[in-house]
C-alpha cells in the first residue's frame, strides 16, 4: 500500500474516479493475455485522460521512485504489461478519443486508448482502412499495438503497425513532452523517432497521441483454400505464389495437428488426412486484376498437387475463414494452459520450421499445433499443457528453448509480432548478441536512466 499522500496527489491530478486503489481492482491489473507468466498486483492504477495528466503522473512517480507500466487493453502475448515490480499501472482505457480523421491527407489522429476496430469503424465511411489487424482488433488499443508493433494476418501485403505510424506525441521519463512526425508523407527532420518508439514496449517513453496512416480500402477480394497431402507441397505453393508475382493479402497455413483439432471442434468439413492447409486471399481495387491474381494462385496450388476450394460468395468465404478463426480456440479448449509462440523464419524456411516443430513435439512428448502467417514466415507453434503439472511445464520450457534456437538457426527471429516482454527477454542475447544487449541498454539508459518505465521487460538490466 502506497503512502496516502501519493494517492491523494494522484487523485488531484486525474480525478478521484480515475485512481483505483481497492484490492479487487488491483487484482484485475495483475495479468495480461500471456500464459505461464508471474502475476503481480500493482500499488495503484491511474487512468489519465490527457497528456498533461500523464506528464504530471510521470513526474510524481519518478520523484517517489515508483515504476510505471503503460497499459492499453492488456491483450498482449509477451507479459508486457504485468506490473512486475509493483508501482503504477498507467491505463489508457479512458484516454480514447479519435481526435481527427483527415481523409484528404489520409491520416487519423488518435489518443492511445482508441480501440483499433473503433478507428476502422470511423474511417470506413470515407472508404479508408487502417490495415494492421492483430487478432485482437476488437479489443486492443492503438497505443498498445503501436508500443508492441503488432502484426496480423495482412502483414505480407500491407505491412505491420510500424508502416502506419506517421507521427507521435510521447511523454518521456524525465517528464518532457515531445512531438515528432506528422501528416507529411516525407519527413526526414531529426532522428526517425517514430520508429524508435514503435515496438519499444513502453520501456522508452509513454505514447500519448498517434498520427496514423490510412489507405483506400480494397474493393474486391477472392478467397480460396488449398489442402495438401505433403507439407513440402504447401511450402512450395507459398514460394510459388510469390514467384508468380502475386502478393496475397493473407496467406495462412495450418498443420495437421491444428486441422484435426479444428475439425473435431467445429465440424466444418475439413479432411483430416492432409498434412497442411493454406488459406489464401487476394484483394485490390480492380475486379479484373483481383480475378487474374486469383487464377494465378489457383494454378500454383494445382501444380503443387493441392486440392483447391474457391469461395464464390461471402458465405463461402466465411466458411473458409471459420477454420482459421477456430485454430486457437480449438487448440485452447484441449488444455488449461496454452503457450502461444510467434517464432518467425524467412518465407523459404516455413516448411522446415513446421517439420521442426513436429519433431520438437515428439521429442518432448507434447501436443503442439502450428498455424500462422506463412506468407510472412510468422508461425504460431501452440503448445498445450497444464500449468499445474510441474514436470510437463519443464518439458514445455525445453521445447520453447528449442523452437527459438531452431528459428534463429534458420535465419529467423524470436518474435514476429508478440514482442519480447518478460516471456522472451532471456533469449534476447541469442539473437542480437552481447553488443546488441549493450546497445539496448545504452538507448534505454539514455532515455530512462533509473528504469522506471515498464521495468523487467524487454531490456535486461545490467547484472549488479
Amino acid at each position: 500500500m502506497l503512502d496516502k499522500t501519493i494517492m491523494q496527489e494522484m487523485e488531484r491530478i486525474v480525478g478521484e474516479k480515475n485512481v483505483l486503489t481497492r484490492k479487487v481492482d488491483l487484482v484485475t491489473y495483475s495479468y495480461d493475455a500471456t500464459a505461464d507468466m508471474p502475476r503481480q498486483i500493482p500499488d495503484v492504477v491511474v487512468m489519465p485522460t490527457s497528456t498533461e495528466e500523464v506528464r504530471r503522473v510521470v513526474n510524481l512517480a519518478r520523484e517517489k521512485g515508483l515504476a510505471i507500466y503503460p497499459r492499453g487493453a492488456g491483450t498482449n502475448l509477451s507479459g508486457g504489461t504485468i506490473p512486475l515490480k509493483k508501482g503504477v499501472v498507467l491505463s489508457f482505457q479512458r484516454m480514447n478519443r479519435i481526435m481527427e480523421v483527415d481523409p484528404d491527407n489520409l491520416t487519423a489522429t488518435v489518443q492511445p486508448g482508441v480501440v483499433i476496430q473503433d478507428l476502422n469503424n470511423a474511417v470506413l465511411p470515407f472508404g479508408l482502412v487502417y490495415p494492421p489487424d492483430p487478432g485482437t482488433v476488437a479489443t486492443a488499443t492503438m497505443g498498445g499495438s503501436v508500443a508492441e508493433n503488432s502484426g496480423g494476418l495482412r502483414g505480407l501485403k500491407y505491412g505491420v503497425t510500424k508502416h502506419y505510424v506517421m507521427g507521435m506525441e510521447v511523454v518521456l521519463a524525465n517528464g518532457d513532452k515531445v512531438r515528432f512526425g506528422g501528416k507529411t508523407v516525407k519527413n526526414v527532420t531529426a532522428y526517425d523517432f517514430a520508429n524508435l518508439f514503435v515496438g519499444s514496449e513502453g520501456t522508452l517513453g509513454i505514447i500519448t497521441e498517434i498520427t496514423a496512416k490510412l489507405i483506400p480500402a480494397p474493393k474486391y477480394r477472392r478467397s480460396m483454400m488449398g489442402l495438401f497431402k505433403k507439407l513440402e507441397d504447401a511450402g512450395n505453393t507459398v514460394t510459388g505464389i510469390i514467384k508468380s508475382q502475386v502478393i496475397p493479402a493473407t496467406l495462412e497455413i495450418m498443420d495437421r495437428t491444428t486441422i484435426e483439432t479444428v475439425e473435431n471442434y467445429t465440424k466444418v468439413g475439413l479432411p483430416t488426412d492432409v498434412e497442411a492447409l493454406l488459406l489464401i486471399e487476394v484483394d485490390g481495387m480492380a475486379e479484373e486484376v483481383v480475378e487474374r491474381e486469383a487464377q494465378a494462385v489457383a494454378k500454383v496450388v494445382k501444380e503443387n498437387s493441392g486440392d483447391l476450394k474457391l469461395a464464390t460468395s461471402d458465405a463461402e468465404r466465411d466458411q473458409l475463414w471459420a477454420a482459421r478463426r477456430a485454430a486457437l480456440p480449438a487448440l485452447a479448449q484441449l488444455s488449461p494452459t496454452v503457450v502461444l509462440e510467434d517464432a518467425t523464419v524467412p518465407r523459404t524456411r516455413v516448411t522446415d520450421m513446421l517439420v521442426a516443430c513436429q519433431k520438437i513435439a515428439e521429442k518432448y512428448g507434447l501436443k503442439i499445433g502450428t498455424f500462422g502467417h506463412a506468407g510472412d514466415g510468422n508461425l504460431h507453434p501452440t503448445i498445450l499443457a497444464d500449468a499445474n503439472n510441474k514436470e510437463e511445464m519443464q518439458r514445455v520450457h525445453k521445447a520453447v528453448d528449442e523452437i527459438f534456437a531452431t528459428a534463429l538457426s534458420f535465419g529467423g527471429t524470436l518474435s514476429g509480432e508478440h514482442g519480447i516482454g518478460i516471456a522472451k527477454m532471456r533469449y534476447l542475447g541469442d539473437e542480437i548478441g552481447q553488443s546488441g544487449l549493450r546497445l539496448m541498454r545504452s538507448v534505454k539508459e539514455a532515455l530512462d536512466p533509473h528504469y522506471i518505465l515498464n521495468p523487467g521487460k524487454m531490456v535486461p538490466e545490467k547484472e549488479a
Partner: protein
Amino acid sequence: MSATAEKGKGVVTTPYDELQLVRNELSKCMKCGNCMAVCPVYLTDKAEAGVARGKVAVAEAVLSGELDVDDPEVVQMLFNCLVCKSCMQNCPTKVNFDRIMLALRAAVVRKKGLHPLKDMIFGLIKRPKLFDAGMKVGAALQGLAFRDDPDKKAISPRSPFAFVGKNYGFDLHRSLPELASTPFRDRVTEVVKVRDAKTKAAFFTGCSVNYFYPQVGEDVVEVLKENKVQISIPKDQQCCGIAVFVHGDVKTVRELARKNLDAMQNSGAEYLVTACGSCGGAWQHEYKELLSDDPVYGPQAQYWSARTYDISTFLTKVIGYRPPKGKVEAVVTYHDSCHLKKTMKVSQEPRQILMSIPGVTFKEMAKPDACCGSGGSYLLTHYETSKSIAQRKVADINQTEADHVTTGCPACMMQLLDHVGRFGKGQKITHYVSLLAESYRKEKKGGAIHVP
C-alpha cells in the same frame, strides 16, 4: 443454508452450493480479453473489474484465499454485472461465465446471508397469494406517485416523488409500464379450449407479463388460438425465480422451481410456451441444473427442459404457424433480448414471424444483440451505467428509422420504454408477438390482403 444441510433433501452440490466446483470453469479462461469487445459494463466503465476476465481473476483470488468472497468490495464488483452472457458469446474457450458469477453470488449469501431487504422481498415472491395481493394494492395506489401518459401506455413519476427518486432514475422523464389493475392470469380461464385442437400447450406467463404486460399475455393466447393450440395457464404457477437466483438466493429459486414443476405436471400439456427469455431460460437450463440430483424433481425438470419453447420457436418450428393475412403498416426493428438469444438461442424465429406479417417493413439495427442495460434489478442498483448502455442501444434504434421497436422479453420492453422515451423518436415498444396477434385480429375484421 449449507451444502450439507441441503443434501438431506437429495440436492446435489452444484457450484451454487459449493464454490470450489467452479474451478474448472475458471481454468478455461485464457485472459485473452475478447469479452472486452462486448461487455456492456466494460464498454461503459472502461475498467478491467467490469469485464468477465477481471471478474474471473477476482474469483481466482477468492478461491486462493487472497480475497474474501463477502468482502464488501468483492460483493460490489460481483453485482456490477448484468449476467447478460454477452461475454460467453465471444469467448473462444467457452467459459460458462454465468455459472461463475452465480456461484460467487450464492457463496456470498451462504456466508453472510441475504440483505434484509432482499430477504423480505424474496420471501414475498415465495408466497404467491401475498405477492399477488401486494401487486394489486400497488396497482390501485400507483396513481398517487405516478401520472398517466396514455400516448405511450406508460406512467411517469409525479414531481414530489421524482424529487426523491431522481438519484435512482425515477425523475420526471422516467417512463414505466403501468401495474395492471387486473393481472393477466385473473383475466383468462385456466384452460382456453379451441375447436379441433392440434396440440396442448401450457403458457408460463412470468411475473412481468402477468402484472405489467397483460396485453402480451392476451396476444400469446390469441396467436395460439389462431393456430389451434389448446392453452392451459395454470393458476398455481409462480415467479420463475431467475430474479432471486441472480441475487444468490439458491434456496428460494429451488423452491419456486419445484412449485412451478408441480403446476406444469398437473396441466396435462405437451409443451410449455414462454414469452420471456429469462423465464424460458429457467425452464430450459437453470431448473434442470439446480435440481440435477433431486430424484423426484430432477427428471421432471429434464422432461420440461426439452419441451419448453419461446413462443416464436413454438410457432415456427414446432407447429408450423399459419401465415397471418391482416395488414399491419409498420416499420419494425427487433432487439435481441440477451436471455432469449444467449440462453435460449432464439434469434431468427421472431424475425421470421415479423417479416411474415403483411405491411411490416423490417429494418435491422446495428448490433441488435447488444444488451439494453436492463439486467432485471441492475437498472435499479446501477441506474447510471444502465442508462448509458441503453443510450447506445437507442442510438442504434434511431438509425433504423423504424417506428416500432420489438423484442421478446418484457424486462427489455420496460428498459426500452424508459430510454426510448428519453433518447428516442417516439417509437412504440412492443413484444413481437403482439404484432402477429394484431395481424390475426385485423384479418378477422376483414382487413386481410387479397392474395390472388
